[in-house]
């Protein structure tokens, strides 16, 4: 393959993919390198999935600026990319008198940042709009929204790919060399050459910086654990419900997040950890989250949860630091653009960060707009979300829509086929799940898992060890039970 590009982006999270998509509007050759077997396998795939309105960040910071702009861009972007985006609004709830000043501070900050329609409501109004939540006052932000973070990341990547960006998955950057003319990016799959390098490596942005000879950054991984509630509890809340966070908690506090798929998520905790890859749930945190859930939402039991997961924040400050750190978005030296410490509100900010990156490049090079840039990307048709008559028509056209494979989420065989047959060629169970939701329901793939494996085998006849949960090393099976050539009656 071609090894010389104008731009190399390191990291296929939401930021890297947004940057890729932004570059794909112009005539500039771009390559994105991702160490995992798919995009959105890191922090971008495991967070609250919130488009923040922009009142948490102090005015004047890059966090505030990109948040506000990202929030403005997202609705249209999601429409173009066929990504569900729902403006359900948010309540930040004060339970005690002494928490009210915090709400007022948020409102003032939000007003200064230009957030629309913020208001502080009393317990009566709160009771009307969110009867299951109790508090004395709340900040109501009607423009706060939800979206699925991995769907957005995948959509950005697919659209960038359509418009000419190259993606290399399973590619680990091992070194970066620069001379006056170019960068040489070394990977486990050979060397690549570029004029610009964009470091959007998330948790590993410090290591990539170091490889480029920039010291002084350190990412402190801060793990957040979540529990996901069964969809049959989805009616309990309509808004995003956030608490007044404890001081120096490292996050926005344990909150309730409805998802675009109809679940409610509870979390995240905030725990500084040593190992950036330690995505495990810890027993103590899981228990305290269950307790908080039951306190926040009466009528919830442990058995109502269908899954737990964790996401790791890429923080630039360590535990106990009082001052929050801002995003680092800058050209460190000629052609090396660093995006470091992109934690919350990174998902919301991503499209704005992408524009800033392209603007930096534009200052140094004339970028010609592609006349044939296609801003639209079509997602997989979601059978279960269609009205009955459309479902019927769809089955008439393609009987694969009449075969329900994932019974919990009503995902049909055609959706599974579309998910497997994806443009990035990411074919693990997790990649399939992230694209069509098969296995995300209450049985967690117990029933559809074997059927999806069967469909993969029919489509590709891969080797047994090539079928994985989430890429290399995560083989689903250790082999065949019997050698197929043995045939019947040969067992002795």
């Amino acid at each position, binding site marked *: 393959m071609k090894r010389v590009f104008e731009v190399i982006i390191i990291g296929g999270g939401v930021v890297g993919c947004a940057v890729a998509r932004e570059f794909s509007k112009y005539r500039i050759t771009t390559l994105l390198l991702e160490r995992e077997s798919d995009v959105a396998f890191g922090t971008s795939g495991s967070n609250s999935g919130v488009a923040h309105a922009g009142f948490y960040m102090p005015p004047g910071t890059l966090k505030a600026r990109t948040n506000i702009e990202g929030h403005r861009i997202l609705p249209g972007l999601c429409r173009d990319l066929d990504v569900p985006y729902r403006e359900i609004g948010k309540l930040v709830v004060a339970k005690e008198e002494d928490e009210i000043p915090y709400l007022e501070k948020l409102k003032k900050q939000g007003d200064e940042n230009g957030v629309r329609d913020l208001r502080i409501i009393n317990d009566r109004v709160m009771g009307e709009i969110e009867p299951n939540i109790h508090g004395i006052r709340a900040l109501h932000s009607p423009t706060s929204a939800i979206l699925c973070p991995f769907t957005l990341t995948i959509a950005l990547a697919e659209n960038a790919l359509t418009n000419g960006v190259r993606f290399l998955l399973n590619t680990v950057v091992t070194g970066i060399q620069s001379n006056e003319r170019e960068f040489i990016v070394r990977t486990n799959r050979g060397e690549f050459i570029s004029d610009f390098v964009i470091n959007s490596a998330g948790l590993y942005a410090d290591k990539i910086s170091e490889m480029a000879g920039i010291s002084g950054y350190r990412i402190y991984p801060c793990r957040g654990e979540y*529990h996901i509630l069964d969809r049959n509890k989805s009616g309990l809340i309509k808004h995003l419900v956030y608490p007044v966070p404890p001081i120096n908690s490292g996050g926005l506090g344990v909150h309730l997040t409805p998802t675009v798929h109809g679940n409610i998520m509870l979390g995240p905790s905030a725990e500084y950890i040593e190992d950036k890859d330690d995505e495990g*749930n810890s027993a103590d945190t899981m228990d305290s989250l269950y307790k908080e859930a039951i306190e926040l939402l009466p009528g919830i039991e442990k058995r109502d949860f269908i899954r737990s997961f964790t996401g790791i924040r890429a923080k630039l400050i360590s535990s106990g630091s009082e001052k929050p750190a801002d995003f680092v978005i800058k050209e460190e030296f000629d052609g090396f653009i660093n995006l470091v410490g992109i934690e919350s509100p990174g998902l919301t900010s991503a499209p704005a960060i992408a524009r800033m990156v392209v603007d930096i490049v534009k200052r140094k090079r004339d970028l010609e707009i592609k006349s044939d840039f296609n801003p639209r990307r079509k997602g997989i048709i979601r059978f279960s979300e269609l009205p009955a008559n459309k479902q019927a028509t769809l*089955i008439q056209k393609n009987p694969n829509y009449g075969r329900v494979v994932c019974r919990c989420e009503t995902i049909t065989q055609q959706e599974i086929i579309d998910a497997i047959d994806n443009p990035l060629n990411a074919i693990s169970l997790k990649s399939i799940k992230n694209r069509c939701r098969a296995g995300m329901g209450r049985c*967690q793939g117990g029933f559809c898992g*074997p059927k999806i*494996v069967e469909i993969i085998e029919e489509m590709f006849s891969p080797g047994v060890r090539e079928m994985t*949960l989430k890429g290399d090393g995560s*083989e689903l099976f250790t082999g065949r*039970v019997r050698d197929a050539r043995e045939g019947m009656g040969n067992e002795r």
Partner: protein
Amino acid sequence: MIDREKVDIAIIGGGPAGMTAAIAARKKGIENLLLIERNESLGGILNQCIHEGFGVEIFKEALTGPEYMQRFIDEIRKKEIPYILNSMVIDISEDKELTIVNESGLHRINAEAIILAMGCRERTRGQIGIPGSRPAGIYTAGAAQNFINLRNLMPGKRIVILGSGDIGLIMARRLTLEGAKVLAVVEILPYASGLPRNITQCLEDFGIPLYLRHTVIDIRGKSRVESVKIAEVDDKGCFIRGTEKEFECDTLLLSVGLIPENELSRKAGILLDPVTGGPIVNDRLETSVEGIFACGNSLHVHDMVDFVTMEGELAGIHAANFVRGAVNKKGRIKVRPGNGVRYTLPHYINGDSDVRLSLRVREPWRNRRLVVKGDERTLKEIRKLRLNPAEMIRIELKKEEFGDLKELSVEIK
């Protein structure tokens, strides 16, 4: 285009419960019925249960799952009972309209009566909250059984099994026979939750250790399971520090309970029992919605398929009677689990016919009496050498015994 059809009885689920219900309804003279199965063949989960031990009660012989189910499939074919495969019911309305999806389209069926026989699903890691990482190699026992028995795929070589449910025990033996090493079966309770015969035949005969009062406290491995840590638990289920043991393994199987499938029942507005996870029914096996009946594992989780079959038959008979105009009442006698009993079924009885109660005890007992009481008066006492939560207990009562009571209860003394 959505087509519409009318049937007398629609049966949802072509496993052992649904098949027997269909056969029983046909025997009662119902011609216009439809058996709906979501998979590509009838038989339900029995398709993957290739071990033997099915049919001891009904056929007085030990059959494999496929052999057992074939007897019913043959009868369905002989009686020309209409059934559809690869067809998923995605909705039931309160007025008994079913929405079905299959390759030929979207279909609406109005049924005079419906029999729910959707079976059950396995409890997952998420519902019991096992800490640790999320690598490949964590399967429910049933999914692993499917991979091995139906798809020629080996889920792992060194295996720890959490939960001593029957499928887990069966899988311990199956995996061992296929050359895997089962390092431990771990059960949080002080007693096994599977049938005693399975403990003997699947664990003891193969020297597989059973760790009672233990649970999994950590899973390690980023890509594939590398090890599983277990520890002893106290009476509250909290693990005791210092008792940890770590097993190097590539697989963790979960056999931590079964949950009746009732998403459709919810859509139809049927009241569910939080203890069984299935509908609240009277002695006609009729749910809180008139004309909708429930049986098999979707009503409550059974220990033996023979009893599922018997329950399916009852549901078929009562649904047929309902279609023929029999007036069902909610049932005026309430049945209640007493001391030591986890649940009793049915929840209500009419008192105009004999009844068979099904129940499960909360914990194992030796040398106790099961006492059936009517309005606080002892009606019947049954001596039991052993009472085991893994085993469903059935008690037959004659209508003369309880005819005009208000309440029945069963307790352990």
